[in-house]
């Protein structure tokens, strides 16, 4: 589904990704771990198409298309979802308003009929319920005044509503209490565990991986994938740290 080859990317002239290669097959869940500052969030932003993140070399193919050619909204319409490490607060725009616009923009881009207000509300309520997010929060401005954990839940509600093919979840587990971690883990499994979907989970902790079993685990250090393995690699890292991998 996603194939990254020799990806080099820089911010403000500073190279952050330094020849990263990674392939995620359809139906698989991969975890990326790695020390702070390794470039994990940068990878997410580059895949999402954020302004200022300049790709200088390499390629990214998503479902057979050149992902880097697409504007961010086209990537979303193509089925890419980016769960933010720090979800952004947007005063003055309610969650429902934002998500309905987002979903309908995606649907229009795919030549699908937009959802009516009532249809959308039904969908949004069901997803909020499934994630244990209070209905009232749908009406509140996007992430404004949400706690860290509520923001992460809201990311999952958004993912449930937008139903992407491929999700990059950047530390969706950090800042969560035990119940929220379980809710988010269950959410990822429910929404994304399917033969036609894939996930790239960026995390620092084994505990999310107890809920969401990865097919493969990669270590990203200094802008490159330096090691890949099965689920046991995450346990090994948790025991032993990144040590010389990150050196």
């Amino acid at each position, binding site marked *: 589904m996603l194939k990254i080859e020799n990806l080099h990317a820089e911010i403000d002239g500073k190279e952050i990704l330094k020849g990263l290669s990674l392939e995620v097959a359809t139906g698989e869940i991969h975890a990326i771990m790695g020390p702070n500052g390794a470039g994990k969030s940068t990878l997410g932003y580059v895949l999402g198409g*954020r302004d200022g993140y300049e790709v200088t070399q390499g390629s990214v193919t998503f479902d057979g298309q050149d992902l880097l050619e697409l504007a961010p909204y086209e990537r979303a319409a193509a089925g890419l979802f980016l769960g933010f490490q720090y979800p*952004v607060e947007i005063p*003055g*725009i309610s969650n429902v308003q934002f998500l309905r616009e987002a*979903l309908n923009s995606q649907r229009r881009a795919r030549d699908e009929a937009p959802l009516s207000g009532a249809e959308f509300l039904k969908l949004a309520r069901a997803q909020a319920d499934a994630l244990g997010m209070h209905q009232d929060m749908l009406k509140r401005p996007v992430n404004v005044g949400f706690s860290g954990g509520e923001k992460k839940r809201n990311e999952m509600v958004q993912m449930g509503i937008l139903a992407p093919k491929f999700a990059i979840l950047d530390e969706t587990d950090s800042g969560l209490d035990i119940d929220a971690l379980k809710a988010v883990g269950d959410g990822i499994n429910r929404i994304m565990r399917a033969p036609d979907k894939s996930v790239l989970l960026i995390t620092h902790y084994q505990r999310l991986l107890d809920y969401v079993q990865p097919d493969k685990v990669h270590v990203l250090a200094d802008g490159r994938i330096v090691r890949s393995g099965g689920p046991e690699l995450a346990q090994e890292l948790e025991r032993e740290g990144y040590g010389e991998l990150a050196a």
Partner: protein
Amino acid sequence: MSATLELPTRRREAWRWSDMDALQAAANMPAGDPGADPAALFLDIEGPRLLFVDGMFEPAHSRPDGVAVSPFEAASDHPLGALASGEGWTLTLENGAARGDIQIVHVSTGGENHVPARILLGEDATASVIETYAGRGWANRLCQIGLKRGARLMRSVRLLQREGFVSIRDEADVAEAASLVSVFLGVGGMGSRIDGAITLAGPGAYGEMGGALLTRGEQRQEAAVVMRHAQPEGTSRQIWRAVAADRSTASLAARAEVVRHAQKTDGEQSLRGLLLDRTATVNLKPELEIFADDVQCAHGATVGELDKQALFYLESRGLPETRARGLLTRAFVADAIDRIGEETVREAFLEDAAAWLGEAL
């Protein structure tokens, strides 16, 4: 334009951002197609309707329903407000009376026109007035407002003139426990100068004057408001938003004065500017002059661009860039427009703002 007219010069501090050249040019505009259908400018709500075309009352298209139309002299020492004499309108409400949704539409075809207005509400009377300006030329207005004890007035004004200039001078006296809320939206292509002098003249009075000015091209719009707390326990809000694109300029000056015995005053000034292009200008001038000691006055003034993080967040969820910019800008403007109490009016104003954004972004 009247040869004797002396316009304020930019040397005067209160007029330093003003575009009196644009006002002159508007006054000299020969009559032409206003490009606006008066009937379409009335919102679809019940209530009295008054249409003024080039400052002349049009009874055939009006149902004044108790709003009086007559010539009168304006007594104002404001340089533009003082010019607004002649045929004008007066709303007078007895104690306890209520009159909702009075709509006044002003269409100009060119040249200059001057209309005075008075809104005089008796004790506990309530009214809501919605004004719309369309067309071209120079429309100059003076609105003198007197609210007796406990009276409440909601005033919503939108400037939709395609070109030319609109100048509005509001002078208000708000008595004990009375409340005045005025919201202005400048979204037309005209230049503008919105002037306000509001006096909270009784204890516990509430005064609010704010709105949003959206400018593009070479356009200049400005608002200059003075809120005077003359009695204790008054509350005032000045919430203004300016959005400027291209090489345009939007300027906001808001001043709050608190006299020595106006203790327990609660004032807020929030002036924020959004630059859609680096070539645009937003001028903000918040001013406080406080002589009382037990006063709470919050004020903030910031100019910025759209938040890049927020933009990317919206885009990453599937919104095309212009849509994302539009949504964020609309939210920015909504802070000020949301102060309008009536939903139909508020929605209409927000739609005008959205239409502007659709064209400007």
